[in-house]
């Protein structure tokens, strides 16, 4: 018998981060931040993306047959999951729940880190839309209406919050009736939008593609012009300039991961459970955390404008690359055990989507290896490393972006200025990032 857990699919979670790890992580983050601020380079290092061009790899990956095969493979996997959702049993052994919450949402992080823009190239929504356009003999790029360019990825930011709401707040989210409404709603909105606005809509509104594209900025694969290059991820992040709404996507991602931990604190559980309107509280908490991230990051980035030639509104997007490693570090710290445990369970159930005793992929008889739970110190170390490394990469990129955008500080005589002037523009951003990192560690401690 499997009891459906109240909160999400995982009935077994990792232990809270030991307090000594929280203190160690915060101390390391603080120390390294100021080392970078005071001693790091004063001239841009990643002004150009650089990297190693890979013409052969580009040719292979851009080959029509390879693209089609990859698209059809991913479409087949999603079609199989859809079969489980539409015709499977309404039990936790139905693989669709783990497929949506573990494989797709959490698995998106390692896939995008390791293989760059894989999701964008194989997104089943794009495949379905391409197929429809081929049937109707219309150009997939053009719809009936034009998307306003200023919209950017704002719809996707809302979409990320909606997914987080489904994952963390939606009552009965591990029942088929509820999940079907969400998945079909997502599919219909995406496809109708793509018909109306052309396939640019999928890039603008699909929360999965927005998540994947954001994480892929930290990968070593990067397309520069037409060619794929092997690049230093720090150079790639420095070169990234997201569309309007890109910062909102990041804030929604970081805010919702933080809410997942926050919602597990005794204080919040008691507050919500005492209230007569728990859904209002939970929704408010989720939106509030995303807004805190959005406002704090935007304000710290806008501060840079005091020292630069652009308006304050320009800086948040220009500096967005610096929060990506923190987003990824948070995600790894929060979801590694979920991916390992529920990922395996999903792989096992994937052989039998309808609950009829099938063993299509030969995985049905496998057992879940939960040995990692016997090594709580190893889990804690992974969490600490993910958060601290994310933080360090983040401040390195933030420092690089600040000197790229402002240029080396100079005195009136044109001489390189004393350190104090170079530090002042970066200080608010540094403090905000230290705040994110310490908050992440404290939330993992889960008081």
């Amino acid at each position, binding site marked *: 018998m499997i009891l459906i857990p109240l909160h999400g699919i995982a009935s077994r979670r990792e232990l809270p981060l030991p307090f000594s790890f929280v203190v160690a992580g915060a101390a390391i983050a603080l120390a390294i931040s100021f080392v*970078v601020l005071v001693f790091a380079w004063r001239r841009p290092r990643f002004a150009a993306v650089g990297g190693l061009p890979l013409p052969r790899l580009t040719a292979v990956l851009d080959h029509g047959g390879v693209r089609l095969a990859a698209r059809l493979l991913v479409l087949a996997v999603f079609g199989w999951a859809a079969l489980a959702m539409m015709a499977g049993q309404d039990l936790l052994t139905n693989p669709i729940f783990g497929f949506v919450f573990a494989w797709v949402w959490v698995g998106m992080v390692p896939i995008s880190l390791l293989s760059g823009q894989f999701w964008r190239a194989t997104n089943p929504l794009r495949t379905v839309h391409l197929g429809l356009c081929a049937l109707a003999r219309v150009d997939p790029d053009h719809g009936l209406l034009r998307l306003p360019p200023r919209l950017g990825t704002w719809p996707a930011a809302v979409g990320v919050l909606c997914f987080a709401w489904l994952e963390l707040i939606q009552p009965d989210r591990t029942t088929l009736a509820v999940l079907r409404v969400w998945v079909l709603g997502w599919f219909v909105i995406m496809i109708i939008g793509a018909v109306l606005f052309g396939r640019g809509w999928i890039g603008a509104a699909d929360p999965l593609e927005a998540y994947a594209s954001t994480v892929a900025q930290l990968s070593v694969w990067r397309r520069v012009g037409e060619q794929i290059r092997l690049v230093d991820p720090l150079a790639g992040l420095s070169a990234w300039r997201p569309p309007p709404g890109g910062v909102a996507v990041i804030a929604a991602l970081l805010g919702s991961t933080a809410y997942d931990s926050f919602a597990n604190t005794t204080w919040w559980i008691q507050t919500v459970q005492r209230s007569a309107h728990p859904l209002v509280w939970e929704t408010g908490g989720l939106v509030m955390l995303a807004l805190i991230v959005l406002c704090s990051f935007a304000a710290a980035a806008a501060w840079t404008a005091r020292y630069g030639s652009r308006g304050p509104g320009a800086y948040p997007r220009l500096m967005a690359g610096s929060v990506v490693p923190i987003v990824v570090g948070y995600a790894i710290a929060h979801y590694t055990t979920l991916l390992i445990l529920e990922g395996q369970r999903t792989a096992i159930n994937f052989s039998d989507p309808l609950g009829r005793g099938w063993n299509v992929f030969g995985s049905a008889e496998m057992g879940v290896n939960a040995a990692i739970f016997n090594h709580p*110190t190893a889990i804690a170390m992974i969490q600490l490393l993910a958060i601290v490394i994310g933080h360090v990469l983040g401040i390195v990129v933030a420092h690089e972006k600040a000197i790229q955008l402002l240029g080396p500080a100079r005195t009136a005589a044109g001489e390189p200025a004393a350190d104090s002037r170079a530090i002042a523009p970066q200080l608010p951003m540094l403090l905000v990032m230290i705040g994110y990192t310490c908050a992440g560690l404290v939330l993992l401690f889960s008081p």
Partner: protein
Amino acid sequence: MQIPRWDPRVTVAGVTIGLCLALPGCTGAPAAPTSSPPATPGSASATAGSAGAAPSASSSEANAVVIDITIANGQVSPSGEKLSLTRGQKVIMNVTSDQDDEIHAHVGDGYELEVTAGKPVTGSFVATDGGSFEIESHELDKIIAILNVR
């Protein structure tokens, strides 16, 4: 083609990070449980000897954790409380409720305790696996306690 050069100072910083990170793992301190045995007098209590007890196959009644659960007017008590346990420790739940309910504990394959309105009932299970698990009221959809089993 231009590959950015790496500042040696960053390498120094990297080594420093490595050393700092190695510290908590090697000094032996961090594995210690961070919170003392069950808090909040009245709602949950551990009998003597539970704090430092090593995981043992024989989960004797002596070091069991006792949770007194009250369900009244749609509220649960304790509510979302965190309890520290050692693997192999027994959990005893004394439940009083003003409504019919089911208490679920998500340990192992899942533990269920049927509760009838107005009839105190006691149930117990052994926390064999490590990790963090919830005890909840199924009817109310509310978390009673979270067991952190080390």
